[in-house]
């Protein structure tokens, strides 16, 4: 093991330099406004949580958790997402609050990178949770709000895929009978291994009709597939899931976002975490989803609370890559002064700042190369000897 060199950072950790910081914070406030308009209120939770509570409940894989020990030897984690901590708060500290609750957050989350670089290990997530509402309107609301939020920061040409894990579970259970077999087949979907899925189905002791139903399932992606999905179902619980999808479609139409969303029942973003509607947002030229979310009705149960909930999270760093705004440098003014003229310079600077300008006051003694330094400003005023008040 070599000692890190002075400029090195742990794998996946990144600096945010002023230019990016400014674009990021501008986007963040645009998104904050968007969700506040829908009545969501922001909150914060600690960066460090117990592994046994938030770590266990989170949807993040065990090997991606950053773990540390406290003085008593208890295992802690750097929060891998915000949903689990908010579920903890909703189930405990905020238990008395009347539901449904609308909570928003913007925070850094941590996921260790194993293999290589290319993905950040610490990144900012922006999202909302709608807790205590099991209705389809709630599912529609978070999808519509996610779309509005992304549009509000200037993202264009993105798409949202909407799936339903309840449907997948019911269909598989109808055909396969046991939870064990359902889980086995579902894992192929989760691992995105369709070749393995098809081979597995062909080797199952099923009637050719049932095999065909499972193979046809892989095509339930795209427009007008809801009717096809309905044909595969035979049980009452299955029809309930279909009903829900019909209702959701109507709801998304009412929100006016049905053009952006596509039904995709093959979307299995997690094995156990999500329980109903799931969705992912995609932007062109980005290799990973820019946002995701869904209904997680069992999560609060892990904190001894039965409330149903749904929410979305947007990856702010990916979003920055996707919008690629050609941001121009902010207009800044620099006032360069000598010690002798400091007082007048400061008075002038204060006046400019009071008028809303961004002004740097800089003692001439502190500058090495004057030309190189002044290059970065849009305007420079000198308070030096005779040239006082003169502009360049």
């Amino acid at each position, binding site marked *: 093991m070599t000692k890190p060199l002075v400029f090195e950072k742990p794998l996946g950790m990144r600096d945010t330099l002023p230019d990016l910081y400014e674009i990021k914070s501008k986007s963040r406030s645009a998104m904050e406004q968007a969700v506040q308009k829908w009545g969501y209120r922001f909150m914060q939770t600690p960066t460090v949580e117990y592994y046994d509570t938030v770590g266990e409940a989170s949807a993040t894989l065990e090997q991606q958790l950053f773990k540390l020990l406290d003085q008593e030897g208890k295992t802690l984690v750097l929060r891998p997402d915000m949903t689990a901590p908010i579920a903890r708060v909703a189930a405990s500290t905020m238990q008395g609050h009347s539901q449904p609750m609308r909570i928003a957050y913007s925070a850094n989350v941590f996921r260790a990178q194993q293999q290589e670089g290319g993905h950040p290990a610490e990144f900012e997530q922006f999202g909302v949770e709608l807790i205590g509402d099991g209705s389809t309107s709630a599912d529609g609301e978070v999808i519509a709000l996610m779309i509005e939020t992304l549009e509000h920061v200037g993202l264009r040409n993105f798409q949202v895929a909407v799936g339903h894990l309840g449907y997948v579970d019911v269909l598989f259970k109808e055909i396969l009978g046991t939870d064990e077999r359902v889980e086995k087949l579902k894992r192929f979907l989760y691992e995105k291994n*369709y*070749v393995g899925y098809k081979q597995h189905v062909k080797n199952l002791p099923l009637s050719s009709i049932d095999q065909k139903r499972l193979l046809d399932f892989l095509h339930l992606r795209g427009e007008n597939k809801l009717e096809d999905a309905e044909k595969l179902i035979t049980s009452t619980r299955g029809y309930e899931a279909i009903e829900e999808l019909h209702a959701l479609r109507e709801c998304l139409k009412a929100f006016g976002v049905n053009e952006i969303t596509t039904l995709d029942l093959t979307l299995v973003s997690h094995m156990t975490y999500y329980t109903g509607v799931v969705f992912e947002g995609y932007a062109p030229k980005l290799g990973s*989803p820019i946002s995701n979310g869904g209904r997680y009705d069992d999560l609060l149960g892990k904190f001894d609370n039965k409330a149903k909930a749904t929410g979305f999270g947007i990856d702010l760093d990916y979003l920055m890559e996707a919008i690629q705004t050609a941001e121009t440098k902010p207009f800044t003014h620099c006032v360069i002064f000598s010690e002798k003229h400091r007082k007048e310079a400061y008075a002038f600077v204060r006046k400019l700042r009071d008028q809303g300008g961004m002004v740097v006051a800089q003692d001439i003694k502190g500058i090495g190369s004057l030309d190189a330094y002044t290059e970065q400003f849009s305007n420079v005023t000198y308070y030096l000897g005779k040239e006082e008040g003169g502009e360049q």
Partner: protein
Amino acid sequence: MSSSTLTIAMPKGRIFEEAVQLLREAEYILPPEFEDSRKLILEIEEANLRFILAKPMDVPTYVEHGVADVGIAGKDVMLEEKRNVYEVLDLGISRCYLAVAGIPGTELDTVAPKIATKYPNVASSYFRSQGKQVEIIKLNGSIELAPLIGLADRIVDIVSTGRTLKENGLVETEKIIDITSRFIVNPVSYRIKANAVDEMVHRLDKVIEGKEIAR
């Protein structure tokens, strides 16, 4: 380049020719000099396709990061790299298998059995599943050398005809898994370029099915 252009990561070397052949059978019109070119990026504007030529082991990496929408990769590479991509089709080309091999009559060392391989993850999980703890030595090629010269007790490698093993006096001791090439898709491209991807999957599938029946 229009936004509907599909970027395809192709594996250089052994699989390349078979993959090109398959695309031609699927009625993609590729220029005749395609195979001879040394360029790493080839654009075919009429077909809205762009090919990138990568090391076979790197194909899933390009696809996972989304710089290629789709790719052709061996199952061996998929097992080794465990990338977050859709494995949509078994192309049925470049058939071979992963196997364990060694010098005939030799046993695994009881204290520290050593395995030389290009596939450390596959080898490690295979021996774990057999209830054995082994030490893996990563090599980048000419794996057969390792047992001959005393670097390892066994090797884990691709076997297609078995000739290389035979010529070097090695025998296959266990077969691990059959390998063919797969058509893989980036998770975002799978949805945002669904039409172009589905079209390609459909055309390739038709060719493969025809071959299955003929076999």
